[in-house]
C-alpha cells in the first residue's frame, strides 16, 4: 500500500507546537472565504449568510475564536491546588485548574492519545487528570506522568514530554474574571479591554473587596447563532420597550408601566475597534434592581470613588459584550458566555456575580432577582431567547437569507462626548453592532497565527 503525496500538501497547514511527524493538512481543508462583501460598516448592512453558513462558521472558529481572548470563569471557582472546572473556548473543551504553585492554568480537555475528553465533570478536585478511555494521566502542570503498557511504544521514539496536555498560549485575570487565548501573538488582555475597563469597573469594582459568585453555573441550550446574542448584549437597547413590554409592566411599581422619562431614557453606548460594546441609560432612576440591593449601596460613596458619571451611567441598567462572546448586565449581576455549537445553536452559561461584602440577605436578594429576570426562565431572558431562536429558525430560507439586515441606527454618531472614555453614541444605536461585525470581518479576513507561523518555530 502506498499513499501518493499531492502538490497541495507541500504548502498545507501544519499544526505548530506539538509532535506532528509527517502529518500535514492540505490547503483544500483550510477556510479562507473573503467576507469583506458580507459586512458593510459604511452603510450599516450585514449579509445574513454570516449566521447560517457552515464554511464561515469553521473559519470563525479558526480565525475569531482561535485568536481572541475568551472568557473562562471566575477566580472564585478555583480555591486550592487541584480544584478544576471545565468549559469551552469556541467549540474546544478546556480544563481550568490551579497547579501546585497556585497558578491558574488552562488545557485543552482532549486526550493526546485518542482524543477523548480527559475530564467529564463540570467541576471538582483532582490530583491528576486521567483519561477514562485508556488511562493516560497528566499532573496539574499538564505533564504526562503515566501511560499504561508504555513498553509497547519502545520503537516509536516515544517521549512523555512530547505528549503533555495542550495549554493555552496566554491566560490573564481582569476584575476577577479569567480569560485565555490560544494566540501567542495576541496583544495583552489589558489592551484588548482598553477603555472597556472603565465600564466594567462600574459593575465589578463596586466593592473594593472584589466580587464572588453564586455556586453553580446555569447552563442551557438555545437555537440561534451565537453572534445574535453577543451582538444584542453589545449594542441593543432598542428592543427593550418592545420585546420586554410585559416584563416592564409587571415590574413597574404602579403596575401600569414605567414613567415616560424612564421608558425613553437618555443614555450612551460605548464601542471600540476591538469589537467591545456597552450601552447604559444616564437617568439616575433607571436602575431596575432588587430593593434590598438598591438600599445596600451607598451611592454617595460610589460617586466619590468611581465618579458621578460612572454611577449614573454604566452602573445603571446597562448591557455589555466583551468581544467576542462574553457579556454581562451590571445591575442584575449576570455574566454569561455564548458558546457556539454549530451555526444554528448556542449554549448559554450564566453566573450570578455578587459583591464580596454583601451580607447574606442582600446576596439572596440579588441571586433571586437575577434568576427571575435573566435566569433561563427569567422574564427578560425568555423574551431575548425567543427573538434569537425566531430569527435563526427562518434564516436558512433562500429569499430570507439573501436580504441584507439593517444596522444603520446612529450611523456616524460615534464621538468623544467629553464625559465617557472612548467613543460613544446615543443609547439607541447600532454603533457597537457595526463595530462588533467590523472586528469579526477583520479577523475573518486575516490569516490567523496558526496559519502563518513557521512550523519550525
Amino acid at each position: 500500500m502506498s499513499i501518493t503525496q499531492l502538490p497541495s500538501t507541500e504548502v498545507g497547514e501544519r499544526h505548530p507546537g506539538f509532535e506532528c511527524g509527517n502529518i500535514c493538512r492540505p490547503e483544500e481543508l483550510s477556510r479562507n472565504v473573503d467576507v469583506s462583501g458580507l459586512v458593510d460598516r459604511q452603510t450599516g448592512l450585514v449579509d445574513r449568510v454570516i449566521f447560517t453558513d457552515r464554511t464561515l462558521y469553521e473559519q470563525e472558529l479558526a480565525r475569531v475564536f482561535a485568536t481572541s481572548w475568551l472568557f473562562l470563569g471566575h477566580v472564585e471557582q478555583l480555591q486550592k491546588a487541584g480544584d478544576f472546572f471545565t468549559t469551552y473556548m469556541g467549540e474546544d473543551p478546556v480544563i481550568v485548574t490551579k497547579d501546585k504553585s497556585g497558578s491558574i492554568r488552562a488545557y485543552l480537555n482532549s486526550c493526546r492519545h485518542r482524543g477523548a475528553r480527559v475530564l467529564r465533570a463540570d467541576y471538582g478536585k483532582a490530583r491528576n487528570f486521567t483519561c477514562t478511555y485508556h488511562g493516560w494521566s497528566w499532573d496539574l502542570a499538564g505533564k504526562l506522568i503515566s501511560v499504561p503498557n508504555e513498553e509497547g511504544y519502545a520503537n516509536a521514539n516515544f517521549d512523555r514530554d512530547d505528549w503533555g496536555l495542550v495549554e493555552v498560549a496566554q491566560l490573564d485575570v481582569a476584575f476577577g474574571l479569567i480569560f485565555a487565548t490560544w494566540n501567542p501573538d495576541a496583544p495583552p488582555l489589558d489592551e484588548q479591554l482598553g477603555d472597556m475597563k472603565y465600564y466594567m469597573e462600574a459593575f465589578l469594582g463596586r466593592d473594593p473587596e472584589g466580587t464572588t459568585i453564586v455556586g453553580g453555573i446555569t447552563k442551557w441550550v438555545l437555537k440561534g447563532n451565537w453572534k445574535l446574542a453577543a451582538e444584542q448584549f453589545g449594542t441593543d437597547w432598542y428592543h427593550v420597550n418592545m420585546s420586554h413590554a410585559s416584563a416592564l409592566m409587571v415590574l413597574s411599581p404602579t403596575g401600569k408601566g414605567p414613567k415616560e422619562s424612564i421608558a425613553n431614557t437618555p443614555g450612551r453606548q460605548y464601542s471600540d475597534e476591538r469589537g467591545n460594546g456597552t450601552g447604559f441609560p444616564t437617568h439616575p432612576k433607571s436602575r431596575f434592581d432588587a430593593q434590598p440591593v438598591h438600599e445596600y449601596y451607598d451611592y454617595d460613596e460610589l460617586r466619590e470613588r468611581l465618579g458621578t458619571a460612572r454611577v449614573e451611567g454604566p452602573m445603571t441598567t446597562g448591557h455589555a459584550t466583551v468581544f467576542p462572546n462574553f457579556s454581562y448586565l451590571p445591575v442584575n449581576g449576570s455574566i454569561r458566555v455564548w458558546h457556539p455549537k454549530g451555526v444554528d445553536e448556542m449554549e448559554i452559561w450564566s453566573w450570578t456575580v455578587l459583591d464580596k461584602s454583601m451580607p447574606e440577605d442582600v446576596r439572596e436578594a440579588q441571586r433571586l432577582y437575577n434568576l427571575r429576570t435573566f435566569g433561563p426562565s427569567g422574564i427578560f431572558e425568555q423574551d431575548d431567547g425567543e427573538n434569537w431562536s425566531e430569527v435563526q429558525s427562518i434564516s436558512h430560507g433562500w429569499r430570507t437569507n439573501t436580504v441584507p439586515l439593517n444596522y444603520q441606527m446612529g450611523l456616524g454618531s460615534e464621538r468623544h462626548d467629553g464625559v465617557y472614555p472612548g467613543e460613544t453614541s446615543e443609547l439607541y444605536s447600532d454603533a457597537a453592532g457595526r463595530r462588533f461585525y467590523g472586528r469579526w470581518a477583520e479577523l475573518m479576513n486575516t490569516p490567523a497565527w496558526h496559519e502563518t507561523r513557521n512550523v519550525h518555530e
Partner: protein
Amino acid sequence: MSEEGIVVAQVGDIDEGEGIQIEAAVLGTVDNVAVFNDDGEYFALDDTCTHEVASLSEGWVEDGCVECPLHAAKFCLGDGSVQSMPATVDVYPHRVVLDGDDIRVIPNPERLA
C-alpha cells in the same frame, strides 16, 4: 506491645480520608508504605500501586478502600486485596497499632528489605 513497630506519625498528623507516605528506609521495607486514616481507623499498605507507578498515599480513601489516584484501581485497606480493575495483583498490608498518640507500623515480614 507498646515496644512493637516503628512510630511513623502522631494521631492528628493524617487528616480523615487522607494518607501519608513513609519512606522504605524508615521501616526497612522494599517499598514505601502508605498509612491511611479512614474515619479514625488507621491502616498501612505498600505504597506503590500494582498496576502502574503511582503512590497510593495520594489516593482517595473511602469505605474501607483506597482508590489509586491515577487509574482508580481499588484496594482493601485491611488486607490489601484488589477490589477493582485495572489492578489485578494485591498490595501487601502492614500492621498498624495505636500506642497513645503514637501511630506505629509493624512491617510485614515478607516485605522487609
